[in-house]
């Protein structure tokens, strides 16, 4: 079968799993010989099924090697003494060399035969019978070593079944042959049961009729009737029949349901009855054979009725007659049920069901996964929306750059910040093109640094399409494994234009303040500064007047005049330098970086303060290291720092005895290569409490101070890039300020 073929592969595994138990075969020298003698010929179904039952049970249960023979004696059809004698002789001759260990006889006629010819066929051999009614057994009076299974002739139960299925029926027809002992026992049983029965039927007995008469009778049965078909070995004319075939014919023509007490009738269209199956009957007989052949005395095993009798019905027949299964007695064996898909294709169905279940399971899993993924996607989307919204609200743009594809992903807000249309394609190039020309190099450097794994923060200007220049702070990061440059860079972008504006505003204000501080400092020093200018002016004026006088002499001393004029030039230059310094300090302007010779700066500062130092009776000692490298810084700011420090020193020594008023200014090179300027005065020092505050704005220890001097120093220091400048105070009695600047 095609289907079977495909199924085979499907159920290969199952077949393997359900591998049958091994068949034991014990090598026994002498097999147990079983001879089965049937009263019927081999076409008689009931006997054949009984023999089948015997043989399969024996083979199933016996631990010994068996040799089973069966003889169909046909004693029912050929019922004469000569046949019996021939048969007995035949059996004796046939089995002389291989005498049986146990004889099994099937059918009452066979039991009767062996009772008569036992000594001829197999003397003293135990006999087990099957298919013999209680009545026949009782009539034959077999010896004690003959035992077997009695056929239960339970007419009453079959009638009971019919009554349950047809509760309103009053007509009852009983059919049977009238040839054998069996037939007669049935007749008695039927009559007795019907008479004893509570419900009274209108009963017709059709026993011993010719087949044709029977058919004619049955065809006229009203449909509201119960028909019970018992046995039919031969009709009234002596013609032999097989009961099953008769039943089949009667069912075909009968208007009413037919019941029968044999399981051989079941697939003929008979509704059913109360009986044992012939196979189970045979099996019961086989159990006795096994016991006897195992050495048990047959006398200790009295004959019994097979206990496996039950109600059996054919569901097809019930359906045909319109009988309800609901009316069946409990425990009824319902046969030939319309095979359900399950029953017909059990494995295919379970396979298909399994496959469907697996598929459904798979689909369910997929659906769940899909749902979860959708949920995850939805929550991811929500999360992204939230992040984008938050970022946009905070005026932050998010970006991600894939180096492999050169694609730059940004949030929409990012494009808005760049002043780009939302559909503009962003790449590394468009990004760099948007950068301010002066910042492009920084942008490239940043991207390169990030791709090496450095997190970076860079401020660059972006020129928007509308020409507006905006400052952006770009934070970038990239996961770097230390081996390969990462492909993904990501980060954020903040518009810091306002911040930058505020910063430059603050820077302007800071410049303003420091300028004012310088002006005010110079204002304080105006007397000293005036002195510094007045000195060369004094020399110039006197020289000039001397020169005029000299020229008026006759003859004029021209050599002297020349000397004088030279001095005037020198002094004029000197005055010019002072003015220059002042102009630098008074000037407002952006800080710029230039190379500064610190020793020169110290000289210049002390010169500027010379007259003030004199006025305040402060001696300046300088200790300047030779061959110092220049430093990078803003000379004006640095000079202001020095100026402030020296003025502070002078202020600090106001109450120091005049002879001790000394400021020591020292320049040196530190072991680290920095240039240090140290100032040391002889003032009272900075109290530890004040130490932390000396750089705090408006903090002052002076009676008339503003408290801005050191603050400004600090400001300069912190802006004096790229020097690693520092200004420290030491909590010593004598304060020292140390200013470190990187050499260049």
């Amino acid at each position, binding site marked *: 079968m095609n289907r079977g073929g495909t199924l085979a592969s499907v159920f290969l595994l199952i077949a393997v799993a359900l591998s049958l138990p091994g068949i034991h075969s014990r090598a026994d020298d002498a097999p147990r010989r079983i001879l089965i003698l049937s009263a019927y010929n081999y076409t008689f179904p009931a006997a054949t099924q009984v023999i089948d039952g015997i043989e399969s049970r024996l083979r199933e249960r016996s631990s010994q090697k068996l040799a089973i023979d069966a003889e169909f004696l046909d004693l029912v059809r050929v019922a004469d003494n000569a046949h019996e004698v021939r048969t007995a002789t035949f059996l004796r001759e046939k089995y002389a060399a291989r005498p049986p260990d146990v004889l099994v006889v099937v059918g009452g006629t066979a039991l009767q035969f062996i009772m008569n010819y036992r000594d001829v066929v197999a003397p003293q051999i135990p006999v087990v019978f099957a298919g013999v009614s209680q009545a026949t057994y009782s009539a034959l009076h077999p010896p004690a070593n003959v035992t077997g299974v009695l056929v239960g002739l339970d007419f009453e139960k079959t009638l009971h079944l019919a009554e349950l299925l047809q509760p309103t029926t009053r007509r009852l027809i009983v059919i049977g042959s009238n040839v054998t002992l069996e037939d007669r026992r049935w007749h008695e049983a039927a009559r007795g049961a019907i008479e004893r029965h509570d419900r009274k039927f209108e009963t017709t007995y059709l026993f011993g009729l010719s087949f044709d008469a029977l058919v004619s009778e049955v065809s006229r049965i009203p449909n509201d009737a119960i028909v019970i078909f018992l046995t039919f070995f031969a009709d009234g004319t002596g013609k032999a029949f097989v009961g099953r075939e008769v039943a089949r014919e009667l069912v075909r023509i009968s208007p009413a349901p037919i019941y029968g007490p044999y399981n051989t009738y079941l697939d003929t269209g008979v509704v059913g009855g109360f009986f044992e199956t012939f196979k189970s009957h045979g099996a019961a007989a086989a159990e006795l054979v096994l016991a006897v052949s195992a050495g048990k005395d047959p006398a200790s095993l009295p004959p019994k009725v097979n206990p496996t009798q039950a109600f059996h019905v054919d569901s097809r027949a019930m359906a045909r007659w319109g009988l309800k299964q609901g009316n069946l007695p409990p425990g009824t064996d319902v046969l030939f049920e319309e095979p359900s898909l399950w029953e017909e294709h059990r494995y295919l169905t379970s396979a298909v069901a399994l496959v469907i279940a697996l598929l459904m399971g798979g689909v369910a899993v997929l659906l769940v996964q899909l749902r979860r993924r959708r949920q995850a996607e939805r929550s991811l989307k929500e999360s992204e929306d939230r992040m984008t919204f938050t970022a946009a609200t905070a005026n932050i743009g998010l970006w991600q750059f894939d180096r492999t594809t050169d694609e730059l992903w940004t949030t929409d807000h990012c494009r808005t910040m760049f002043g780009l249309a939302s559909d503009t394609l962003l790449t590394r190039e468009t990004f760099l093109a948007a950068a301010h020309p002066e910042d492009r190099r920084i942008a490239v450097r940043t991207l390169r640094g990030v791709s090496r794994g450095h997190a970076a923060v860079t401020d660059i200007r972006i020129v928007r399409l509308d020409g507006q220049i905006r400052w952006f702070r770009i934070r970038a990061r990239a996961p770097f494994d230390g081996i390969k440059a990462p492909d993904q860079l990501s980060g954020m972008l903040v518009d810091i234009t306002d911040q930058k504006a505020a910063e430059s505003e603050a820077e302007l204000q800071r410049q303003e303040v420091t300028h004012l501080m310088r002006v005010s400092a110079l204002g304080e020093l105006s*007397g000293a500064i005036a002195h510094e200018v*007045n000195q060369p002016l004094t020399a110039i004026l006197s020289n000039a*007047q001397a020169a005029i006088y000299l020229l008026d002499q006759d003859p004029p001393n021209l050599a002297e005049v020349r000397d004088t004029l030279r001095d005037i030039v020198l002094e004029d230059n000197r005055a010019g330098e002072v003015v220059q310094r002042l102009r630098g300090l008074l000037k407002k302007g952006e800080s710029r970086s230039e190379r500064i010779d610190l020793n020169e700066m110290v000289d210049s500062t002390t010169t500027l303060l010379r007259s003030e130092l*004199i*006025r305040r009776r402060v001696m300046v000692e300088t200790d300047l290291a030779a061959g110092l490298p220049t430093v990078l810084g803003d000379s004006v700011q640095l000079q202001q720092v020095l100026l402030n420090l020296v003025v502070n020193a002078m202020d600090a020594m106001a109450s120091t005895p005049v002879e001790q008023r000394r400021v020591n200014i020292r320049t040196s090179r530190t072991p680290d290569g920095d240039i240090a300027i140290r100032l040391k005065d002889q003032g009272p020092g900075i109290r530890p409490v004040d130490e932390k505050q000396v750089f705090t704005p408006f903090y002052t220890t002076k009676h008339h101070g503003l408290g801005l001097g050191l603050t400004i120093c600090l400001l300069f220091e912190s802006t004096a890039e790229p020097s690693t400048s520092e200004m420290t105070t030491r909590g010593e009695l004598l304060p020292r300020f140390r200013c470190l600047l990187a050499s260049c």
Partner: protein
Amino acid sequence: MTQPSPWIAIVDDDPPVLKALARLLKTRAIEARTYGSARDFLAALPDATSDALPECLILDLQMPEMNGLELQRHLNHVGIRIPTIVITAHTDSDMHELCAAAGAEAYLRKPLQDTTLLAAISEIRAASARTQHRPPGTVK
């Protein structure tokens, strides 16, 4: 004993100023000796004889160590009386008062006009001539 020629001392810590003032006085035939600091001047002072002392002292006020006012006071303290012209690049009026109190004949602001300086010197000379009978160096 020969009468020593009269001379004027100039004390200023600024060499170019010293040189220019000395040159200016020389053109007017006034002998000037210059000193870079008060200490130098004191060290060069001869014994306290009238002949050895300068007829006039042109003294810068702002100088390191000992300033003009301190030198004035020191001379007063040791009993040496030299007519003094204080010159200053400063404008502090209190210094003017103090110098006057210490006996300064004149208080001139830098840069100096030659006429003003010469006038101050002439005045001192005239005053000295009027008090020639009195022994120089004594303080009234």
